[in-house]
């Protein structure tokens, strides 16, 4: 039985067609994956379905449970049982789980909230989504994985029949992702339909019953998973419209001498007294080498990288940094940059880019001294630099004057890379440089990274995606709970070995307790 049918949906932004006669058919009780590159129109389509873009701003029709729908807002779609869970979670940190679940949907009579009932009902929902937490706990005290579960509980509280999940596992570690996918399968058994938007194709193949591929605002095909043979290559082919023979560009590493060496690095939590975040970490990186740091979310990789980068994180930092064998002192970010370090953050939007600024302004930001004399910025030089990098890194934008907030994730990532490449560092620390961006853009970014290594720079590559770490790194450190728990060469590394390193260290830690 078909629960949802979207027919010939077209949507314009100004004169530009974002969706071109897209159709989507979802059967009741299935998990339907929606895949496509960034900009393919997935989110636009879902925003139309959930009423974010109200009826009348698009053409085509939506039939939900046999009924024609003309939603004028999210409230109306929710009433019908459609709930959307956005990529950026919409929970309020200083309210409890129970309060968040029933936000806008309070258990109340005459406007007076029945807290007893709120708590009880919330507890039931939490059990259903498999979250073992007290409903009175504040959201801010939960990890991202658990928050995601609260979001789902919130949707269930509204009697959702169709759940739309936009990149639900983008910010989750493997374990939490697993739990979440498991939960989707459970919910499916109890008759809830789900539309899953995801870049992680292995997950999609694992849980989806049907996969619809969008490209450039049009439906390419819908694959029925139970019928045919589905593999990642087939999906990728559909998404990018061409054969992508190798997901990682080839490179012959030319590895030189030790460039950067960090010894006995220890960092304490900036807020909680006496809590060690990084414990006695020692690593070294050679010229022309791409070194991966792999680990679960929360392993301390970002904290480690930032503490090295001019003490941008943590306090009571101890340890030693040597560059080219010489000991260097890096107490501020400025010093770090002067010493040839660059850190490309994992958090593009909040810590990486000036979103209201244009390409030009963002690219020059960390190296204004290179385009200025006696504090006066040379306009022409700045323009030239931005134009150069826009071309070199193939940043797709209307011009160097386009605001960065209007670029796609992949292009935003390239702007950040441009900024740090322009700073001409010797050592680049890249933190999740491909998070949330599509396959094509990923390939381009790998190519850029390879080029940088080719030029003799040392690259530290932090990523949660194991295939990617295995695909491009020459050597991999495995990190867990603030410690280096393994070091693997390209030849010996595999997903299993990395996971084994992590598991073993967890067991050791447990043994210690």
């Amino acid at each position, binding site marked *: 039985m078909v629960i949802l049918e979207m027919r010939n949906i077209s949507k314009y932004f100004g004169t530009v067609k974002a969706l071109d006669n897209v159709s989507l058919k979802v059967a009741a009780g299935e998990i339907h994956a929606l895949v496509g590159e960034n900009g393919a129109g997935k989110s636009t389509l879902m925003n139309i379905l959930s009423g974010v873009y109200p009826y009348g701003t698009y053409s085509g029709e939506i039939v939900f449970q046999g009924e024609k729908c003309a939603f004028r807002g999210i409230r109306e779609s929710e009433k019908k049982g459609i709930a959307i869970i956005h990529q950026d979670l919409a929970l309020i940190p200083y309210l409890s789980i129970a309060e968040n679940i029933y936000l806008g949907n309070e258990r109340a009579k005459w406007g007076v909230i029945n807290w007893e009932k709120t708590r009880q009902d919330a507890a039931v929902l939490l059990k259903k989504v498999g979250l073992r937490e007290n409903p009175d706990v504040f959201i801010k005290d939960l990890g991202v994985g658990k928050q995601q579960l609260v979001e789902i509980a919130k949707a269930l509280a509204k009697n959702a029949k169709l759940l739309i999940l936009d990149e639900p596992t983008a910010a989750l570690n493997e374990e939490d992702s697993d739990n979440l996918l498991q939960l989707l399968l459970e919910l499916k058994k109890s008759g809830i339909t789900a539309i899953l938007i995801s870049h992680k194709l292995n997950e999609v193949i694992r849980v989806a019953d049907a996969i619809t591929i969008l490209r450039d605002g049009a439906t390419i095909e819908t694959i029925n998973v139970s019928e045919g043979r589905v593999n990642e290559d087939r999906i990728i082919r559909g998404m990018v419209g061409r054969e992508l023979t190798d997901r990682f560009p080839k490179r012959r590493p030319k590895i030189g001498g030790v460039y950067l060496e960090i010894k006995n690095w220890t960092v304490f939590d900036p807020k909680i007294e006496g809590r060690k975040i990084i414990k006695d970490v020692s690593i070294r990186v050679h010229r022309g080498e791409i070194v991966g740091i792999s680990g679960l979310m929360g392993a301390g990789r970002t904290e480690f990288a930032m503490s090295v980068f001019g003490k941008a994180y943590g306090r009571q930092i101890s340890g030693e940094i040597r560059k080219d064998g010489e000991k260097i002192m890096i107490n501020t970010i400025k010093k770090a940059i002067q010493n040839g370090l660059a850190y490309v953050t994992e958090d593009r939007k909040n810590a990486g880019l000036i979103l209201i600024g244009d390409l030009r302004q963002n690219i020059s930001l960390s190296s204004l001294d290179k385009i200025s004399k006696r504090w006066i910025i040379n306009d022409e030089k700045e323009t030239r630099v931005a*134009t150069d990098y826009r071309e070199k890194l193939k940043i797709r934008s209307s011009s*160097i004057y386009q605001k960065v907030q209007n670029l796609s994730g992949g292009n935003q990532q390239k702007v950040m890379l441009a900024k740090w490449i322009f700073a001409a560092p010797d050592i680049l620390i890249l933190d999740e440089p491909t998070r949330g961006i599509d396959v094509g853009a990923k390939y381009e970014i790998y190519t850029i990274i390879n080029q940088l290594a080719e030029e003799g720079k040392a690259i530290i590559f932090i990523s949660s995606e194991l295939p990617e770490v295995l695909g491009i790194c020459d050597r991999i450190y495995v990190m867990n709970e603030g410690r280096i728990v393994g070091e693997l060469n390209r030849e010996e590394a595999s997903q299993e070995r990395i996971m084994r390193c992590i598991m073993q260290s967890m067991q050791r830690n447990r043994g210690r307790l």
Partner: protein
Amino acid sequence: MMETVKVKSVEITTTARVSASYALKANIRQYAMLIALVFIMIFFQIATGGILLVPMNVTNLILQNSYVLILAIGMTLCILTGGNIDLSVGSVAAFIAAIMGTLIIEEKMDVTAAIIIGLLMGVIIGIWQGFWIAYVRIPAFIVTLAGMLLFRGLTNTILKGLTLSPFPRSFQRISSGYLPDLFPVIDGFNLTPIVFSAIFSILLIITQLRKRRAKIRSNTGVIPAFLFIGQLLLIIAAVNLFAYALATYKGIPIVLVILAALISGYHFFTTKTVPGRYIYAMGGNERAARLSGIDTNRVLFFVYLNMAVLSAVAGIVFAARTDSAFPLLGNGFELDAIAACFIGGASATGGIGTVIGAIVGALVMGVLNNGMSIMGIGSDWQMTIKGFVLLMAVAFDVLSKNRAK
């Protein structure tokens, strides 16, 4: 979704010339307030029966609003860092004026020495407030609210609740004096401003043409020729008409020289210099700025230090204009300055806004004040109308931005 939209939109760099309608639209939004100012002036010119733009009144407009213009410059920088405002500027201005009064009138100190001391006091106050805001990270709103009470209290203490007056001529001249006539005065027609405006016009044409040529050479978008020429002509016409008005009255007021120096100096500072860029970067995204090696604490500190010094300048100018230092001096200045910035297009969350915008905003308020006063509208109504204008200006900005999305 949005990405596809943007990719396909106007390709500026490849064509080097922006389409006329696109440029017109982009420029209209930028100049909306300027156009509004022109309309407001035309309205009052008619409503006051031509009094608004009488040479004497034009000069008056400048003198009357000089303090708001000075404060609006500094306030722009504060707002740029992230929507921070400074509530203490009126009280600081009063405090400095009180010091001027005490030193010059009571202690008979040399005017120049007293002014230097006044400006130094501004620096000290700036260090004081900047320290709490930038290094202790107490919200600027709270620190400057405290400063507003603190310096008002100190003003009263120094003045013992009394008004000090009059100042010597040499001090008054700051606000009521005119530049000496460098060129002959014919029939009450003062040639000096005309010569200045002519030089300005020529320089403007040369620099603008040079800029445009450079842009064409580097293949970065230029606006169509007719818009460029139109813009240039408008600016030149406005400047020369203004100069004509000054010429038929008493010439160039000294305050105008101070203002011109401050406005062009700060315009250059915010648009062309590295620290200026830091201010915008900090307001745009403080964490990103920090991770790019910018010491945002120092930026914030400097901005509030600067604001206090400009408050001191405003205090001196205002005391010279009213020829007195009194306990209630500068009451409400902070709100005028803040309103000017927001009318001029500054964003309440920081990172967006210009010095020129704030000046236009201040002039909008100034012309409204002046025009309504001439028409005999009471100050109670004036305030109501100004409040309404502030709201409408910001609403216009918000709505046009939403539509652009």
